C-alpha cells in the first residue's frame, strides 16, 4: 500500500472530522455532568467547560432527596420493566404464530398489521377514543397502547422463520405443544434478537413523555421524563429551591443559597440519562445486528 500526498491529506481530513464529531457528540453530556458537580452560584459566573471549579454534591443531594423525583423515577422504572417484559412477550408470541405455515387468516392478519405502519387514526381521534376507554389519569395508559409494535413483530418473524424447521419437528414428535416449542426451542435460540428489541423497547418506555404528558395530570402517576419537562420549562426548579430555604435552621437554608435552577436541571438530566448511558455500550454489538435484521424486510 502506497501512501501518497493526497492520501495523507484525505486521512487527516477524515480522522479530524470524525474526532470532532465524536467530541461534539459527547461534550454536551460532559458539560452537563460538570455543571451538576459544580456549585450553582459559581456556575452562573460562566466559563465552566471541562472541569468543575468548585466541586460539590449538593445538587445531587437535593435531587435525590426530592420526593417527587423519587416517585417519578419509580413510575418510570415500573413502566420500563413491566412494559418491556409484556410488550416483548406479546409481540414475540404474535410473531411466532404468524411465522407458522398454513395458519388460517394469515394473510389478513399480516395485512391488518402492516397497514397500520402507513396509516394511523392520528393524534386527536386516538385522544378522544382513549378518553372513552377511561384511560385518562389511568396507570394503564403508560403501557397498553404499546403492547404490540408491528415493526418488532416483523423483525421477530423474520428471525423465527430463519430457525431450521427440523429443530421444531423433533420436539413435536416428542409431544411438545406449540407453546412448549415457543418457550423451550424458539426463545432460547433468539437471545440476540430478544436482547436488541428489549433494549429498544425499554429505551422507548423510559424516554416516552408526550403521551404520558397529555393523558396524565395526576402528579403521582407522572414518569420521570415529565418531571424533567416541568423542571426545564417551568419554574418548578426555582420552587424547589425556595422550599429548601423554608426549612428553618436546616442545612437546606445554607444549601439553597448556592443552588440554582440550572444546576438542578443538569443534575436531574444526568441522573435520568445515566441508566441508558451505562447500559448502552454493553448492548451495542447486539443492536447493530438487530437493526440489520429489521431492515432486511424493507
Amino acid at each position, binding site marked *: 500500500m502506497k501512501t501518497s500526498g493526497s492520501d495523507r491529506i484525505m486521512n487527516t481530513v477524515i480522522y479530524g*472530522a470524525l474526532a470532532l*464529531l465524536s467530541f461534539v457528540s459527547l461534550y*454536551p453530556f460532559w458539560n452537563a455532568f460538570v455543571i451538576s458537580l459544580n456549585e450553582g452560584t459559581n456556575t452562573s459566573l460562566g466559563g465552566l467547560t471541562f472541569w468543575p471549579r468548585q466541586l460539590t454534591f449538593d445538587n445531587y443531594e437535593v435531587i435525590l432527596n426530592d420526593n417527587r423525583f423519587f416517585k417519578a423515577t419509580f413510575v418510570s422504572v415500573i413502566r420500563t420493566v413491566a412494559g418491556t417484559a409484556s410488550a416483548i412477550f406479546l409481540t414475540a408470541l404474535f410473531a411466532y*404464530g404468524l411465522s407458522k405455515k398454513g395458519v388460517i387468516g394469515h394473510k389478513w392478519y399480516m395485512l391488518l398489521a402492516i397497514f397500520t405502519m402507513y396509516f394511523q387514526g392520528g393524534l386527536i*381521534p*386516538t385522544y378522544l377514543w382513549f378518553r372513552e376507554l377511561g384511560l385518562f389519569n389511568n396507570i394503564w395508559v403508560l403501557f397498553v397502547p404499546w403492547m*404490540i409494535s408491528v415493526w418488532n413483530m416483523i423483525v421477530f418473524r423474520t428471525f423465527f422463520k430463519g430457525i431450521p424447521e427440523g429443530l421444531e419437528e423433533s420436539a413435536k414428535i416428542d409431544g411438545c405443544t406449540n407453546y412448549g416449542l*415457543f418457550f423451550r426451542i424458539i426463545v432460547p435460540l433468539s437471545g440476540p434478537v430478544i436482547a436488541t428489541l428489549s433494549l429498544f423497547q425499554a429505551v422507548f418506555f423510559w*424516554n416516552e413523555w408526550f403521551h404520558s404528558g*397529555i393523558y396524565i395530570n395526576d402528579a403521582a402517576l407522572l414518569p420521570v421524563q415529565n418531571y424533567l419537562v416541568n423542571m426545564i420549562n417551568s419554574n418548578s426548579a426555582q420552587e424547589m429551591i425556595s422550599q429548601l430555604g423554608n426549612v428553618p435552621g436546616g442545612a437546606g437554608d445554607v444549601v439553597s443559597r448556592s443552588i440554582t435552577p440550572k444546576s438542578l436541571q443538569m443534575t436531574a438530566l444526568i441522573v435520568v440519562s445515566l441508566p441508558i448511558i451505562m447500559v448502552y455500550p454493553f448492548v451495542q454489538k447486539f443492536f447493530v445486528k438487530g437493526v440489520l435484521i429489521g431492515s432486511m424486510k424493507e
Partner: protein
Amino acid sequence: MKQAGAVKGKQTESALHRFAAQWEVQSMIWPGILFILVFSYVPMWGIILAFKEYDIFEGVWKSPWVGGKQFRLFFESPDLVMVIRNTIVIAMLKLFIIFPAPIVLALMLNEVKHMAFKRIVQTLTYLPHFISWIIVSGLVFSILSVDSGSLNLLLQKLGIIDQGVNWLSFPEYFYGILITSGLWKEIGFSSIIYLAAIVGVNPHLYEAASIDGAGRIRKIFSVTLPTIAPVITIFLILNIGNLLSAGFEDILAMTNNGNNAILRNVSQVIDTYVYTIGLNQQRYSYAIAVGLFKAVINIMLLWGANKLARKVGGSSLW
C-alpha cells in the same frame, strides 16, 4: 340447490374445524390482533369527525355532519400560510441536511482502517439517539444559555462575538438550532444501515477499480455509492412519504410544548398545529381535518416517490 347448500355447509364446517384444530397457534395471534384493532383501528373511525362538528355531549356518531366546512376553515385560516411555510421549510432542511449526512458519515467511517478509533467514533455518535428529546432540549438550552453557555464562551474566545447572545430568543436562529440538534441526535445511529450496506460491497469491485487506476475518492463515487444506491433509494422514498411530518417531539421540546410565543411564527408546523388547536383549544373536528389533510398528502407523496423510483429503474417499496 339443496346439494349446493350442503356442499357449502360442509365447507364452512371444515374451515371451522381446521380453525379449531389450530386453536393453539390462533391463540398466540389473537391477543396481538386485538391490541391492533383496539388501539390502531378503532381510532380510525374518529376520522369521520373531520366532516362533522364534534359535540362533546353527542359523541362521535350523533354529532351533526358539516361536509367540507372544517377543510374550508383551514384553507381560509390566517394560520394556513404560516403553518404550511414552516412545515415545508423544516421538511426541506431535514431532507437536504439530515437525510444525506449519515451517508457521508458512513462513507467516512469506511475509510478508517484503525479499528479502535472507528469503534470509539461509533459508540460516541450512536449515543445521543438513545436520549429523549426532553433531555436533548435541556442540553441544548444549557449549551446555548447567555451567561454560562459553552457556545457563547467559544464564540467569545474566537472573537466572533463580544457579548453573550440569547440564541433562542431570535426566531431567525431557530431552524439552525433545530436542524443541528436533530443532526446531533441521529447522524450516528442512522449511519448504521448505510455502513452495513457498504460492508456488503464486493471487494473485487474495488480491486478492479484500483487496477483501472481509480483513487480513493474515485472509488467512493464509482463503486461504493452505486452499490448502496438501492438502500439510499428505499430510505429516500420513506423520507419523502413522511415529508409533511416535519417534526413534532423535537419542536415541542424546543418550544416549551408550543408555548414559546417568540418562536411560534417559525416553529408551528402541521403536526404541532393539530396538537395546539386540538388539545389546547379543543377544536377537535377542525384539528382532525387538518391532520387528515396532511396524512392524505403524505400518502400521495409516498406513492409518487415510489412510482418515480420504479420508473427510474431503481429499487422501490412495492
